[in-house]
């Protein structure tokens, strides 16, 4: 019936498609040329119909034409995947020269699948399909599969066309609390300046972003030499006890411990030649704090909250009235270091003492909380709380009477305002505070307490359950240690599963038989460098991506709330013929939700088409009726 070869069909249909490239060109350059070219095409069609009607219809109903057109359609589709589609100008110019971009746009290759030539191929193929199908009529039972498959293509194209013509796409920028009853039209993800009214309103009641549980990992960056950039990192889960191999550095990395909420906690431990000490806990409602007393000058006392009193720890209970008085007395202790000799002695305000070979010293002033009044430039105390005690010393030369002065700070012994201590000596100062008109409690390791007010013993008693109870709060003496020292303990103070307030990892790095202990935090801005700068480590959370976005919306129609729904990705709101999709969020604005809108009247026809295609295929191939 059909003698023409496949090549003939390729050539002829190829020419026709090429003609439509020209039509596309005319469309973009000159509209009258465009209509002219369409008219010429129509003339050709009419000419061929009149010339040889049978040949014309044979051509159109040929399976060889189908093959040629399918291949051309495939080629057209491939072109669309090789050229960037519908991105903005700047993005195009990043990849293509302006001239090439102009050529692309002349043939509509920047929007291949909506170009005239592409749609022509689809149309041509459908026409071919129609004639092929018609040729099969009247249908036999065994042709059902064949018929369904070919019809399905029509149905899909029909549905697609309906959607293209009557379908609407848009976008709403929502903020929590807002009600919108219109949306912006969009085209290729860009907003158009055109709005569509809805006959109902949608209110965003709440917006929620749910994240995946945190997954902290040690990211390993490596490079061969330090003058190169680091390559792509890989990561190890910060899981206690895991040992990982870092091949590039020929090293092993062991996760010693991962802290979700790293805190350093002070404690006491037993040592030889230590200081008598006590570990206490201050409990105030639900908050707990810990502290340590050492029975050494300056470290043996603690002011109660709001300066309601002072607690002093003495390992041995003071026996005499004199001992008690010495303990509760405010004291200033100087430590003078001259020519390698250190003298430590208590001083009193206003008194003079021998300082060094050539100098005497007079104690001329004291402030518990050093500050300088910016108005007068004079030294003042910020308050009575001894948070920055300083003492004023006046030196005078034993022979010449020449004078100089200095402020000495307990907490900053090196700091001297640029003034020098005479005779090359150095001086340190320790303030032992006391409290006036308020009780001082002297606690001893045997559990006994002496309450003293203004130097006079008021009461002697024993602690109950090793604690001093003051009603609002209490101090619990947890441990006494006769020969103790400070111990710093690292603890994970995480409250609950999702408390990652201060993630810190301790690792052990083993390289060439040597091990190195490292600690770094997820809050570190700088990486930790190893292997002479060839390896860098960071602790970071891998799971920063949201698990779900949810918009809680209410549909309002005629002033009434008619529907409540949670819009999620994969779970759109369907109302009034429109679909509303969760499509965006703003990491900086927790109240923002981007909702896209679609009305797609042809979509179910398309689905029907896909279904018919699948079913038709099964019938055609598996049931040869």
């Amino acid at each position, binding site marked *: 019936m059909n003698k023409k070869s496949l090549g003939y069909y390729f050539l002829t249909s190829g020419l026709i498609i090429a003609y439509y490239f020209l039509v596309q060109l005319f469309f973009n350059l000159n509209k009258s040329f465009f209509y002219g070219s369409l008219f010429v095409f129509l003339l050709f069609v009419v000419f061929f119909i009149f010339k040889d009607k049978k040949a014309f219809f044979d051509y159109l109903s040929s*399976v060889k034409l189908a*093959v040629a057109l399918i291949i051309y359609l495939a080629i057209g*589709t491939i072109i669309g995947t090789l050229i960037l*589609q519908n991105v903005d100008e700047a993005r195009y110019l990043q990849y293509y020269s302006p001239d090439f971009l102009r050529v692309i746009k002349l043939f509509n290759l920047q929007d291949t699948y909506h170009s005239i030539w592409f749609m022509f191929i689809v149309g041509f193929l459908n026409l071919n399909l129609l004639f092929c199908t018609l040729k099969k009529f009247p249908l036999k039972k065994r042709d059902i599969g064949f018929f369904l498959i070919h019809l399905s293509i029509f149905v899909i194209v029909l549905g697609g066309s309906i959607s293209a013509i009557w379908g609407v796409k848009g976008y709403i920028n929502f903020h929590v609390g807002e009600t919108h009853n219109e949306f912006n039209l969009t085209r290729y993800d860009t907003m158009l300046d055109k709005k569509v009214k809805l006959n109902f309103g949608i209110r965003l009641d709440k917006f929620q972003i749910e994240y995946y549980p945190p997954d902290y990992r040690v990211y390993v960056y490596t490079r061969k030499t330090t003058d190169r950039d680091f390559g792509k990192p890989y990561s190890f889960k910060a899981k206690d006890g895991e040992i*990982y191999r870092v091949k590039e550095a020929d090293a092993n990395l062991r996760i010693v411990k991962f802290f979700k909420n790293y805190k350093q906690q002070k404690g006491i431990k037993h040592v030889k030649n230590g200081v008598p000490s006590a570990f206490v806990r201050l409990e105030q409602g639900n908050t707990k704090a810990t502290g340590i007393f050492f029975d050494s000058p300056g470290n043996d006392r603690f002011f109660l909250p709001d300066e309601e009193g002072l607690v002093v720890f003495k390992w041995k209970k003071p026996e005499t009235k004199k001992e008690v008085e010495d303990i509760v007395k405010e004291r200033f202790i100087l430590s003078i270091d001259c020519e390698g000799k250190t003298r430590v002695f208590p001083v009193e305000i206003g008194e003079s003492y021998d300082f060094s070979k050539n100098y005497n010293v007079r104690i001329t002033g004291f402030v518990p909380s050093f500050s300088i009044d910016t108005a007068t430039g004079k030294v003042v105390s910020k308050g009575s709380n001894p948070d920055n005690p300083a003492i004023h010393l006046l030196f005078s030369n034993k022979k010449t009477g020449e004078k100089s002065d200095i402020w000495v700070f307990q907490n900053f012994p090196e700091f001297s305002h640029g003034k020098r201590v005479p005779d090359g000596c150095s001086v340190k100062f320790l303030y032992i505070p006391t409290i006036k008109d308020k009780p001082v409690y002297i606690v001893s390791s045997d559990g006994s307490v002496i309450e003293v007010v203004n130097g006079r013993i008021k009461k002697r008693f024993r602690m109950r359950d090793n604690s001093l109870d003051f009603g609002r709060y209490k101090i619990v003496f947890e441990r006494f240690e006769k020969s103790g020292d400070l111990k710093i303990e690292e603890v994970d103070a995480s409250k609950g599963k999702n408390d990652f307030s201060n993630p810190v990892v301790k690792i052990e790095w083993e390289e060439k038989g040597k091990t190195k202990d490292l600690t770094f935090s997820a809050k570190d801005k700088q990486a930790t460098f190893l292997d002479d700068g060839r390896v860098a480590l960071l602790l970071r959370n891998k799971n920063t991506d949201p698990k779900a976005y949810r918009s809680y919306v209410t549909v309002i129609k005629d002033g009434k709330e008619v529907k409540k729904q949670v819009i999620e*990705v994969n779970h759109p709101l369907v109302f009034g013929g429109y679909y509303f999709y969760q499509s965006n969020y703003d990491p900086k604005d927790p109240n923002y939700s981007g909702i896209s809108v679609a009305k797609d009247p042809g979509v179910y026809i398309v689905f029907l088409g896909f279904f018919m295609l699948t079913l038709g295929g099964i019938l055609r*191939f598996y049931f040869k009726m």
Partner: protein
Amino acid sequence: MTLIDNFSRLNTFLIALIWVYFIALIIYTVSLFSRSKGLYTFGRITLFIGFLINFFLIVQRWREAGRPPFKTFYESLIFASFCIILVYLVIELFRKVKIVGAASIFMALCSLLYAVVKVDVEIINLPPALQSGWFIPHVVIYFVGYGALAVSFATGILYLFFPDKIELKGDTTWSNFLINALGGEIIDLENFTHQLIVVGFTFLNLGLLTGSLWAKFAWGDYWFWDPKENWSLITWLIYITYFHLRYVRGWRGRKAVVFAIIGFIAVVFTYLGMSVLPTASMSEHVYTGN
């Protein structure tokens, strides 16, 4: 305590699986030249053990990740090898085409070795769009389809070497070899390939249907002209061409099968090649491993 080396931080079972498939491949290849039933049975058992390990790997990964293991290349390549072997094992129930078996195992091995090279082993969370009831059917359907098409690729190439509908008499060494390798005296490789493509194509259609439904509910459109979608369309068009060419005089047979072979190359490109496309950044379908 476990020592984990980053660049072979692969599952021990994966390494075991590669070895088992490799042994199966050797036995199948040897059994092409040997009529020993025992050897062939041993090969089948080995392959089946491999298949079970493959299945176990998928289940293990599923449990570890707490989601279907089809997100990263690593995961999907393991699933691809599973599907290829699945299709072959079903075929083997009907005909002992050992040579097709060897080719299928070879392809499954390629897939697994690629997974070893890719090492995007890390477990990635599912973004909201993939948390859908359509995720599993969509992926499983496509991969079973890919499996069938992979085997059809093997039989198609075989067909190019052997003439139409060979009737083997067993009178020459060569014909004896073929009877053994193809599991019988008569075989129509063209028809065999065609049937596999029909199966694969049916799954492609189903995949298209589930994919379009999913896309509609996740993003608001059934078709996005996404590069992966376009390449699946191209693949589909190539197989359609193949089906039609079978009705063009002078094209049925070798020439049409060439299209089937090109079709599978397009499948592989659709599956693995998306990241090389300049339009890849616009795709929702590119496998991400970081």
